[in-house]
């Protein structure tokens, strides 16, 4: 991993099109501004990881038809509690 020290307002350039500016820091938080082309998604890593995890869980439990039917019957129960 490359370690760089930057002051407030300084920028790290990654390749031609991506730059990261240190906007502010303090109280254990750093605020960074990321500039990147639209086709490069920029997200907090924990969000990305949570989606990967959710995809793995979704495709792993997949769900035989009977699982889905069971799930559907419980949905129906909640929609129509009187039945």
């Amino acid at each position, binding site marked *: 991993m490359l370690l760089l020290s930057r002051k407030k307002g300084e920028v790290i350039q990654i390749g031609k099109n991506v730059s990261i500016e240190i906007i502010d820091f303090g109280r254990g938080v750093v605020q960074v501004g990321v500039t990147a082309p639209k086709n490069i*998604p920029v*997200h907090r890593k924990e*969000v*990305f990881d*949570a*989606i*990967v*995890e*959710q*995809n*793995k*869980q*979704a*495709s792993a*439990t*997949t*769900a*035989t*038809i009977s*699982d*889905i*039917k*069971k*799930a*559907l*019957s*419980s*949905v129906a*129960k*909640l929609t129509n509690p009187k039945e």
Partner: protein
Amino acid sequence: MANRITTPVTINSSQFGEVELQPDNIFYFENGMLGFENLNNFVLISDDDIVPFKWLMSVEEPDIMFPLISPWLVLPDYDPGKGIDIDKQVLFAVVTFNDGKGHITCNLKAPVILSSLELLGEQRILSFERYHVDHIINKLA
């Protein structure tokens, strides 16, 4: 990364057995699904038995299937924001039938977007904070 499939292909799935797929039913995901970047060709499966859910099945690994639901069936006022053309693109949320806590959840934060004209697909992470990856649809009885 796998290439786009352009000729009929026969797959073998433990759920459906041997099935021949036509290329005009196959959506190409250039970047795969998140965490499954090596799977790039998918088919959307509708089945009367599982309405309103559908499946997104990997052509490369037919036993990998993502259950999907329309996000508007979960949240009627779901708003994926600009950059999505609802007239030309169809959106789905990936469903987890058991999240380990007995809930059925769906991912409203990163919808699957299918463009039926170009037969392209992607899973896009929405940049705003209002939706979650594990939106609870319902409690399992």
